[in-house]
Structures are given as structure tokens and as C-alpha cells.
């Protein structure tokens, strides 16, 4: 685990809405695990498991934005759903404001749902098409039996204004809105009961580029205004760099690297992170042929049968025998920067230059 004083010093300079950041950990996740059983046969005996998330440990401080990035099948969405307890973990613990919520019953979890909310990826699937906007955004008040000063409708209309919609939209149905507007409705719903933590699962990836920017700005403004803490799940590295204070990179259910935003993008250490960054297409024609792009061979292995020891070793150009026999621990190789690799890149303490031949340097000039 990271040491508190170092993290505070780093976060103090990087966190958004900086003057209200406290040193409290809002969320402490330890060795989080989710295995989905695979059952076969008449008796439905368990014959294996999809090892979706394995041993995730991280903390989220009040007021910051932590992003989980990775490709399909890395377990980031499953992790996000465990944080909101839409799924129950099969191992590990989740502490929210110091309280263990890992295996709370539905009844005990219910009051906590005011504090932990989720924004979903699909603006078309996440709103009930048969409910008006007023019903959708007002539902949290009803479900949690919250009485507001001037009535639910007024509260809903204020929320609509807060997210940049008009109060007159109260009586409209989701199909009358564009994707970006529907996402705003989803955000209004998530904000209804003034949550402390919002898990945003790919909040802008389904939106057009010009609308993405609007919604990203909105999320940032709301964070400043309302003192929100975000855990964002995303795959677009450019958006993640813009929005995050800290970034955790996942691969096949494991966290392979976690660091503050700037060190991660300027000096990624895990080979997978380096490959991921080099794969992002840059809107600059001058770079097209000159780029030292790392080509990862093949596809991500199945989480039913992940590779032994370091799960990335089957696609890693630096892999050696130890990588398939000993699992690299998540070690702090620079202040606040943890990496799980036997042969990390960009180590600043060691003499580097000659070892870089054949493996591209950091993605930015």
C-alpha cells in the first residue's frame, strides 16, 4: 500500500478542486476479487471460473478522480460494479468511509446508495423509455424516501438546470433527446441525493466528439462545485489524461500499474501501459510513418484460463522465464507510482539508454 504522507504531497498538487481535498480515504479496496463460476452438466457443478478481477488494491481520496483503464475483458467494469455493490465480490474487501460494505445485505446497503452512485455508458439503455425525465430523475427521492424543502419536482428541475438541461424537459421522454442530453439526464439522476462517490462507467464513449467535450466539462464543473469523488472507467487514454488525478491500468483482471496522471503519461513503466499509449492514434499526419509503434501480437487471453504468473507475459516483448514462473508484485518504483513488472520501462534510477534499443521510449516528445 502507498504511504500516506507521500500521496498527500503529490495529491495536494494534482487534485482537482484542490483546496478542499482532505487526507481521508473515501474508498479503500483491498485484494478485491470476482470470479464468475462456470457450471456444466445436469448438476450444474462448477468446472471453472472466469477470473474477472483478481487482487485489486487501491484507495480513492475524497475529491479526487481515479480512472481505471484497460481493454475489453480487463475487469474494469466488473470492478466498478463491485464498488457500487451491483455485484458482490468473491474475495477481498471494500471499505467506504471506513465501513466494510463488501458483503452487506441489500437492506443494509440501501441507505448507502445515497452516497455511492453510478453513471452508465449507454445513454440509450440506461434510461427507462417509458418514464418521463421527471420520473427518472425523481426516482431516487422516492426510493430513498427523501423529502425536499420545496417538493421533488422542484428538486428535479434544479438538477436538470444543474446539468445544462431545461426545467421544461421534466415531462419529456428519453427518446426525445439526443445521446448527449440523455447522458446529462443520467448524470442528473446520479446527483439527485448528493452522493459522495460517483462511479462513471465510460461516461462519454458513446457520444460524438464535440458532445464528449461538453459532458467532460460538465463532470469537472460538478466535481468542483459539489466536492464529488469520481472513479472513472474508460478506455480512451486522451480523455482519461484530461479528467484524472490518478490512473490505474488493468490487464486481465489485475492492476499492472497505478500512478498520478503526469508520471503515468510521461514515464509509463509497465510494458502494457507503454504499448497502450503507443497504440493511440494521434491526430497528426506528420507522425504517421515515423512512429515507433509497438505492435502487440494476438488478442487478450481468456480470463477463464489466464497465463501463469505475469498475465501479460504471453504478449510482452520483454518477457523472460521468470515472468512465467513468478508473479511480479505491485511495487512502488517511484513515489506514488506502483508497477507489477520484473522488467519495467523508464526506470529513472538505473542507467537506461542502451536497454532502450528496440523498445520505444515514452509516447510524448
Amino acid at each position: 500500500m502507498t504511504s500516506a504522507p507521500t500521496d498527500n504531497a503529490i495529491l495536494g498538487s494534482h487534485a482537482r478542486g484542490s483546496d478542499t481535498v482532505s487526507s481521508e480515504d473515501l474508498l479503500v479496496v483491498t485484494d478485491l476479487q470476482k470470479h464468475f463460476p462456470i457450471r456444466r452438466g445436469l448438476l450444474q457443478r462448477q468446472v471453472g471460473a472466469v477470473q474477472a478481477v483478481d487482487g485489486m488494491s487501491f484507495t480513492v481520496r475524497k475529491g479526487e478522480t481515479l480512472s481505471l483503464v484497460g481493454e475489453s475483458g480487463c475487469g474494469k467494469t466488473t470492478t466498478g460494479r463491485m464498488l457500487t455493490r451491483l455485484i458482490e465480490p468473491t474475495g477481498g474487501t471494500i471499505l467506504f468511509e471506513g465501513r466494510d460494505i463488501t458483503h452487506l445485505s441489500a437492506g443494509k446497503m440501501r441507505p448507502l446508495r445515497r452516497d455511492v452512485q453510478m453513471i452508465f455508458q449507454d445513454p440509450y439503455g440506461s434510461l427507462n423509455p417509458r418514464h418521463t425525465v421527471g420520473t427518472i430523475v425523481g426516482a431516487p427521492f422516492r426510493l430513498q424516501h427523501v423529502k425536499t424543502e420545496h417538493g421533488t419536482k422542484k428538486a428535479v428541475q434544479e438538477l436538470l438546470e444543474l446539468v445544462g438541461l431545461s426545467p421544461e424537459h421534466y415531462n419529456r421522454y428519453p427518446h426525445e433527446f439526443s445521446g448527449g442530453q440523455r447522458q446529462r439526464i443520467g448524470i442528473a439522476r446520479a446527483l439527485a441525493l448528493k452522493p459522495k462517490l460517483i462511479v462513471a462507467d465510460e461516461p462519454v464513449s458513446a457520444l460524438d466528439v464535440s458532445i464528449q467535450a461538453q459532458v467532460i466539462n460538465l463532470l469537472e464543473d460538478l466535481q468542483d462545485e459539489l466536492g464529488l469523488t469520481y472513479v472513472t472507467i474508460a478506455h480512451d487514454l486522451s480523455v482519461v489524461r484530461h479528467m484524472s488525478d490518478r490512473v490505474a491500468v488493468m490487464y486481465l483482471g489485475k492492476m499492472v500499474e497505478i500512478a498520478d496522471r503526469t508520471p503515468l503519461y510521461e514515464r509509463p513503466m509497465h510494458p502494457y501501459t507503454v504499448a497502450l499509449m503507443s497504440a493511440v492514434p494521434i491526430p497528426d499526419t506528420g507522425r504517421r510513418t515515423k512512429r515507433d509503434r509497438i505492435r502487440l501480437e494476438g488478442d487478450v487471453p481468456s480470463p477463464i484460463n489466464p497465463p501463469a504468473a505475469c498475465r501479460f507475459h504471453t504478449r510482452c516483448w520483454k518477457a523472460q522465464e521468470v515472468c512465467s514462473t513468478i508473479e511480479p508484485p505491485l511495487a512502488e518504483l517511484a513515489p506514488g507510482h506502483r508497477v507489477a513488472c520484473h522488467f519495467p520501462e523508464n526506470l529513472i534510477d538505473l542507467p537506461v539508454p542502451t536497454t532502450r534499443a528496440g523498445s520505444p521510449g515514452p509516447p510524448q516528445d
Partner: protein
Amino acid sequence: MTTTAIPQAGDPAVRPGIEGFLQVKDLRVHFPTDDGVVKSVDGLSFNLERGETLGIVGESGSGKSVTSLSIMGLHAPGTANISGQVTLNGDNLIGASSEHIRRLRGKDMAMIFQDPLSAMHPYYTVGHQIIEAYRVHNNVSKKVARKHAIDMLDRVGIPQPDARVDEYPHQFSGGMRQRAMIAMALSCDPELLIADEPTTALDVTVQAQILDLIRDLQQEFNSAVIIITHDLGVVAELADDILVMYAGRAVEYATAHEIFTAPQHPYTWGLLGSMPRLDRERTERLRPIPGAPPSLINVPSGCPFHPRCAYARLTDGASETLRPEFTEISSRHFLACHLTVQDRQRVWENDIRPSL
């Protein structure tokens, strides 16, 4: 419709194209609906040569996908009113009989769709689908076609192609499925390949592989490629020229280099300015384009972008009433905008360039 006098695309005497391998002139695609006429494409023109890649960039409702479906003749008959001219190697596609188009489709022009899982038939093996495509256009035995299918799967980088040729689409991962679809599209060596958001549904590392593959195959087959996407990074990687579409119309057309270093249309400026970029300093706030893309039933009068344009006021009302012509403003750079050259230069130098 066509007689033997009209040269077929495969005829060596005709290659390369007459005056533009693919020529689109004033294409209009309107869909009559109960709510009104949806003008998905409203007067689009461009040319493309073999060996070149055109990137069509636009957001939802820009008309980019409808354009490609129109070229391929894939609109259900009776649903769309299509006018204008689309010629492929001198062969007129609009108004041609569906029989004629079917002969061209797959053989001379092919398409890769965004979501391979819904574009491929779930009940037939991948091999069967490639073989079917190949045998429609080539009179060969099943055995020969099967060998060809295996060769194509190998060519697109699918490991163990002789085993995987008998697998179903759902047994492939996303990246492999997209490769299989590319194999299917290229099985008859088409001269025109249209890729409609080919990598949007894929992870970024797989996307990189697929883009490299498309580039390699284009060089090998000397195909003309149209890549349709909203991702400016993808288009910078692949395209020689870029056409920016908005509300069913072309607003800017230039070489890829020009579009990224000296764009001239306010919408292009907006797109470039609203994206967070890894190769630039991180900014505190993104600069989105205000508003949202317009409804294609009620396209704004005059210039369709004017309600969202920060510079509409400089045009003395012209952008609200007059539709801007798509004209050549400098060598191989076309623009549809009412701003005067001086105003545009001024805004570019003072407002836009420093912040891009």
C-alpha cells in the same frame, strides 16, 4: 441496363479510371418519413483514385454512413430517394439495375462494417460466408474457394486459418472477427474498399493492428479506400485526403496534412479544438462546440452550421439565408463557408492556430 459497350471494371483497357476512379457528383439521399423528409445527404461531390485513401469525417447525422451505403447500393428499395451521379470506373451506379450492382458489389467494391458481430451471419461459419462471397463472383469449385478462403484468413493474420475457417463468428474475438470481415471484403480483390467505422468497436491495441492491416492490404492490392470515422486520430493515420461532413453536406475537403495544419472551416476548427490530445499539453478545460448536431428533417437555413458557429455574425446574415457553395479556395482545398478570406485568415491566425 448496361450493354457490353460500356467497359466493365475488370477490363484492362479501362484501368486506371477515366477521370477519377470513383466519382461522386451532387449526391442527394432523402428519406421520406411521416415527420418529413430526412435529408441525409444533400449535394455531395468528391473523387477518388486507386491507391488513395479518402477519410470521411463527421459526427452522428452527418450523412457519412448513408453516403457509403448509397455507393454500395445497400439502401432497401423504395426507402430512399437517391439522385446525383456516382460512377465507378466510368460505370454509373445510381439508377443502375440491382442486378448490375449486385455483380459489382463484392467484386469491384466491398464494404467493412462497424460491428462485425451484426454484419456477419451468425448461423454460418466464417469460411462459408467467405466462400459464398467468392463463388458469387468467380466460377470455381467449392474446394478451390475453400483454399482461397483459408489463404485470405491467413493474409489478414488469423492464426490457424485452416481450423478457424470452420468456426462461427461468435467464436472469434472482436479483433479477429473484424479481420475475418476484412478477409471477406477483400476475397474478390475489390478495387474500392469502404470501411465504415472499422475500429470503433475495438480496443486500441487491436485498432492499431487493424489500421496497419488495412494500410498494408491497400498497398498490396492498390485499392481505393474510403474510411469513414469520427476519430480524427484514425483518419490522420490512414487518409491521404479528408472530407469533413456536416448535416449531410461537405464543409471542407483537403489533404490530410492541410486539414490538420491549416483547417479553414469553423466546424473543423471546433472538432480539432474539442478533442483532448496526447501529443499536446493538457488544458484545464476542453473547448466544445456549443449546441448539438441538427435534425436532418429541419436542417437550419443557409449554412447548416450557423447556429453553432462562433463566427456566423461576421457574415452579415448570409450564413442564415444563403447556402454556401463548396468551392476550391486554394489548390486541392475545398470549403463551404461564407467567411471572407480576410476574416478567415484573421480568425485562424489570432484565435484558432495558437490554441491547436
